[in-house]
């Protein structure tokens, strides 16, 4: 019954068509221009995520198709799909994750409206759906610039170019890389490869123009290069030599464009310096410092570089050059001025020293109640000036403090006066011996009071003073009185000047005959002077 109904309806439909369109009754749709295109070009390979257009020719405008297809060894049938537009095209047919990968063919198509009355047209159009990468990873997951290789592996694809989206230290980027037959991209970390944290977070076949991405997570760390040698171009240097033109360079293998850290011993004392110097690249790999000079105050001792590394690396990635540069120079110290010369007890006095070779200065004294602080670095001025605070306790005695200045080139002593409130002018109670002969040097002791930082002077021609040593208590001075051979006999007035004033006493200058007179006493009185 159902079959009869179908026959009747079909007959009515055919008759109607024949009445309305009598000349078209045998004009079946011509599908001979069947093709698939993407981007306007015929395609035979597509990717998940791609879309294509199906063309059945201008005669197929508005036609809805039936399709017999083959995927692998299986055939299938699609009933009434797709419907073509006015150009006989079904646009934007897309492949998603559910699409079976591999080869397939549009075997036959026909006009769905005609059903079995439309002859199947043998389309025989083959199409291969290529896989998109399904995952990614690195092997290894970290490497060192200038030293290591790495392999980036994409799962599920091979012999294809893939586009990757990644971040480097958080900054996004994209690159197209070729995969070999194993799905691998092998590369070398060069000295200059940008270091940091790489994370590939998306990947897709490079051939597709769609926004289809496969999300992945593939992290990789590229570490800075590792120094593989260290050297210098000199083994000795003069501190402050040749007006600073005596220089040396540091060199670091695989260290170009990096600053370095190094460990050292200087005169046997160890330490480490950081972030200095910067090594300029000179061959795309290795580095050299600028011209380094030793300043006048540079420690005159063997400088041994015991270890060195790029500062971007932690210790453990160093080389051990055991390389020595011997520094010579830094002469003996001299003091040109001391300002002020003294300070009151119970106060701290900032003293400025000028001179030469005050390098690495420090102070010591045995004077009770005097200590030193806030000592500035004289090396910054090439050892020509410095300041220090002289701290004097209130219980310190007024007097002459013998201070020793210690420098890298040796030690030098000087006196610093300790004064007290109401400090009086100096007095001289005696000079012993009281005289000396012409052409001799006489060790003399001057006794008195307030002899603090004394300056000896006289207007007597031919008399000078050397080796002036004030006593710590300020009550005596020892000195050599130098009487020249041209001096005449007479009485010299010796003057002792301090910051509080001056005092005087006399000293006899005579000939040898005068000095060899014999004195004859009677009791405690001189009764005769006899020349021999």
């Amino acid at each position, binding site marked *: 019954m159902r079959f009869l109904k179908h026959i009747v309806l079909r007959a009515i439909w055919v008759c109607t068509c024949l009445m309305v369109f009598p000349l078209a009754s045998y004009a079946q749709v011509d599908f001979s221009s069947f093709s698939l295109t993407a981007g306007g070009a015929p395609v035979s390979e597509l990717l998940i995520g791609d879309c294509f257009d199906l063309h059945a020719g201008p005669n197929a405008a*508005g036609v809805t198709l039936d399709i017999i297809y083959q995927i692998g060894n299986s055939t299938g049938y699609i009933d009434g799909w797709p419907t073509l537009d006015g150009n006989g095209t079904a646009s934007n047919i897309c492949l998603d994750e559910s699409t079976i990968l591999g080869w397939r063919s549009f075997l036959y198509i026909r006009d769905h409206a005609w059903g079995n009355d439309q002859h199947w047209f043998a389309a025989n159009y083959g199409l291969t759906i290529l896989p998109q990468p399904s995952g990614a990873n690195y092997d290894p997951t970290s490497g060192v610039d200038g030293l290591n290789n790495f392999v980036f592996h994409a799962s599920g694809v091979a012999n294809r170019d893939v586009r990757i989206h990644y971040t480097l230290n958080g900054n996004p980027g994209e690159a197209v890389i070729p995969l070999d037959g194993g799905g691998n991209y092998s590369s070398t970390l060069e000295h200059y490869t940008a270091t940091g944290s790489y994370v590939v977070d998306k990947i897709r076949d490079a051939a597709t123009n769609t926004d289809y991405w496969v999300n992945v997570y593939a992290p990789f760390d590229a570490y800075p290069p590792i120094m593989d040698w260290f050297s210098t171009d000199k083994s000795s240097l003069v501190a402050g030599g040749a007006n600073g033109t005596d220089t040396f360079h540091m060199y670091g293998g695989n260290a170009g464009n990096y600053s370095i850290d190094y460990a050292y011993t200087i005169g046997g004392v160890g330490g480490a310096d*950081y972030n200095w110097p910067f090594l300029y690249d000179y061959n795309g790999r290795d580095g050299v410092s600028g011209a380094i000079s030793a300043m006048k105050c540079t*420690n005159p001792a063997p400088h041994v570089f015991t270890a060195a590394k790029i500062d971007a690396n932690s210790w453990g990635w160093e080389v051990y050059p055991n390389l020595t540069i011997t520094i010579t120079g830094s002469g003996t110290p001299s003091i040109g001025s001391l300002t002020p010369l003294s300070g009151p007890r119970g106060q701290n006095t900032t003293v400025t020293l000028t001179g030469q070779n005050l390098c690495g200065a420090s102070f010591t004294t045995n004077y009770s109640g005097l200590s030193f602080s806030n000592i500035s670095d004289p090396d910054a001025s090439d050892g020509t000036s410095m300041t220090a605070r002289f701290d004097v306790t209130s219980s310190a005695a007024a007097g002459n403090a013998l201070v020793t200045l210690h420098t890298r080139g040796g030690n030098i002593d000087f006196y610093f006066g300790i004064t007290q409130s109401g400090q009086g002018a100096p007095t001289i109670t005696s000079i012993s011996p009281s005289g000396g002969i012409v052409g001799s040097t006489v060790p003399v002791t001057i006794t008195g009071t307030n002899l603090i930082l004394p300056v000896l002077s006289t207007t007597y021609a031919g008399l000078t003073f050397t080796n002036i040593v004030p006593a710590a208590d300020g009550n005596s001075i020892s000195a050599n009185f130098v009487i020249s051979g041209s001096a005449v006999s007479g009485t010299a007035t010796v003057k002792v000047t301090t910051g509080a004033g001056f005092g005087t006493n006399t000293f006899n200058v005579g000939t040898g005959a005068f000095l060899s007179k014999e004195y004859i006493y009677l009791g405690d009185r001189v009764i005769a002077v006899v020349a021999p």
Partner: protein
Amino acid sequence: MTAALSQTKKDPPIDPRVTPMGTQRPKPSATEKPEEKKAPAIPPGQTIAKAVAAHGGKNAEAAVKDSIATGKVTFFNSKGAAGTRDVRVTRKGGNAVERIIPQDSGDLREVSDGTTTTQFLGGFKVAVDGGPTARFVAANTGRSIESLLDASAKGLSPSDAGEKDNARVLEVAEAPANKGIAKKTRFYVDNGSSKVTRIEFETGETKDAFGKAFTTTESFSYSDFRDVQGVSTPFRIERFVNGLKVEETQFDSIKFNNSVKDEVFK
């Protein structure tokens, strides 16, 4: 007439059936992906004027003759923090800067008087010609926050380079003589605060691990702004090379107008 001829030229409705041969989808219309709207350019002078105001105003800036900042600096390597040391930075007049970081063998002194830059350490000295010290000096002198705020007087002609990282970017294309320090310098003026929060030097070009060209940068990021004598002053400075942190300076004291002598910068 065939069924085909009975169709109109109008596109047929899409049948979104998922078939083994694909799924037809509506064509993306041109309006689905609107063109990314570029932020309109803002006259650099306008951005700078906002920054000047945000940093305390022209008068407060002009009153600063010198500064002494003390604090701590932490260095970073590829494994993280690699040690913290004292630091003292002295600046004067827009051209002179000295940074002192004590080391085992003495003070590492980086000093520039505006003409020459020199490093001192442990009795050794070396002239600086480019590299990180030169960029530190630039970030504290001719390419400092203050230099941007007084751009016309300092001879800077920055151009508007759009927006990035929530900041307005002003760019200075460096003259050949300055290319040892940078090819370009970019100042980031924060959209919210209008303060200069980053100075970035474009230092060159290299390649990344995938062989793609990579522009190398060194940048100084500023934060922890505090009021010092009316000037909004950053107390934290982070330094990055190609996005990796290499230094972090945290000042605990910044004082202006200390009558710093020129000899300090020799």
